[in-house]
């Protein structure tokens, strides 16, 4: 798979427009005097493949069926930069079927989450907005409706082997689960702290996040979550494309009730 063409700066002189077909997200940018007019349509099918990108006649931007936003500036900027990123909330991964990790064992799970598209104006790189390439469903991660955290739910299924092909607008995450106790550990759902992960692009054009590891310790009721530095070993020749939205505070995430990390 070639490296994607959409990340980076695109020349859009005043009075012209561009269109990007970013899988489930179709994005239009219309550069008007002192104003960027962005419009987009999000499909509910996460498997849609990316299409063409390039300049279009501003008159060809559909007048209906799009969400729109206007951004004004005293500068007439002539380029727009698209920056890949990750979700703004944790993502809950649910395997096809809950499974048990036997005592003393470790397993690598592979899951993927949607890529976010950041829009930055001109040479200054000022942020216009962030859009999900696919808006995942909301979900609640907690022991009951009173305690917990709002998260996204990933329709991708956690695999025990690397996905043969990750969708171009999803980022793969390697999750290592280690059971240090003797009794089996049931894994039904895993919360991936996506806002704390960096995003990488490997030489095959696949997006990867920082890998994470979850360890069950101290009698089985406590979990240790770690965000590992750098790309996973599976991401050959990977380069950093976006740092984490929020820095990983190891002191806070190091040990938690196991139920706050997986269930």
């Amino acid at each position, binding site marked *: 798979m070639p490296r994607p063409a959409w990340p980076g700066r695109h020349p859009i002189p005043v009075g012209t427009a561009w269109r990007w077909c970013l899988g489930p997200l179709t994005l239009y940018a219309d550069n008007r005097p002192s104003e960027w007019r962005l419009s987009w349509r999000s499909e509910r099918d996460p498997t849609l493949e990316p299409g063409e990108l390039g300049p279009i006649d501003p008159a060809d931007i559909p007048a209906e069926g799009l969400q729109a936003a206007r951004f004004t500036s005293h500068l007439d900027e002539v380029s727009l930069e698209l920056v890949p990123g990750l979700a703004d909330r944790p993502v809950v991964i649910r395997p096809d079927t809950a499974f048990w990790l036997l005592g003393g064992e470790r397993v690598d799970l592979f899951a993927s989450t949607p890529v976010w598209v950041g829009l930055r104006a001109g040479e200054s790189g000022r942020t216009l907005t962030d859009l999900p390439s696919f808006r995942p469903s909301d979900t*609640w991660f907690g022991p009951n409706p009173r305690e917990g955290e*709002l998260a996204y739910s990933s329709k991708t299924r956690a695999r025990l082997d690397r996905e043969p092909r990750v969708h171009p607008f999803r980022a793969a995450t390697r999750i290592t689960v280690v059971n240090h106790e003797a009794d089996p550990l049931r894994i039904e759902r895993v919360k991936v702290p996506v806002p704390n992960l960096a995003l990488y692009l490997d030489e095959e054009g696949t997006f990867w996040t920082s890998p994470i590891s979850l360890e069950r310790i101290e009698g089985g009721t406590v979990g240790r979550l770690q965000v590992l530095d750098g790309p996973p070993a599976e991401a050959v020749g990977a380069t950093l494309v976006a740092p984490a939205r929020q820095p990983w505070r190891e002191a806070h995430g190091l040990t938690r009730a196991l139920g706050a990390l997986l269930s």
Partner: protein
Amino acid sequence: MDTIFEFLTGGRAANLLRALAILGFGVLAARIAMAAFDRWLAPRFPNHRILLRRAVWYGLLFLIGASTLRQLGFNLSVLLGAAGILTVAIGFASQTSASNLISGIFLLTERPFTIGDIITVGTTTGEVISVDLISVKLRTPDNLLVRVPNEMLLKSQITNLSHFAIRRLDIALPIAFDGDVGKVKRILLALADKNALVLDEPAPMFMIKGFGTYALEVQFSVWASRLTFLEMRNSIQTEIQKAFADEGIRIPVPRYEVQGGAGLPPPPAA
């Protein structure tokens, strides 16, 4: 002339000046103290800041006023005696206000809601915009200001709609007795799965409540973040209506069968 001289030398002028100084410096000091108190209050009691600030401010004003009067030569014991009688009179006259005040203090400690919460009291639903000494002000969705006395709040059932991060929507659906319940369930669960605002967990729930008078009573419950609750409520019900129309699922309406007995006159011809 003699009177003025006597006034100036008799010590009354000095007392008056002292009283004015107490009043002036007292109010100034009270203002400075209030500013510091407010800074201390803001992070600790953001929701009851106004109430506490007013209580302390009026207390300080009372002390300054009493000191000023004392300096002017008023006998405060007589004044307090009179004030006692006055208090009893005022007490009788302001039972409601006192009750509201005390109720406000109880609410202050119980904290069933905070400023910005959406609550329902009786038949009124609105956003809490202030918690005051004797009442709470609500802004209703149609932008009306509703003043609810604290006493009423203490006695009534209050529903806080924004206390928890997620909320459940219960949709009551009558299904025809000859309808395909399994198909209805599949459609509803698929719609919930497709709607990004419906939470995956807690999972949507399909429940047959029983046989109604004219239809099978079904409840479909879905959860959403309270921030997107209204949007989800509109979108999911619009999608259900459209899906039922597309799939030919009829939502029954009450039907009444009227039979004429023998001897009744025939219905008039159309």
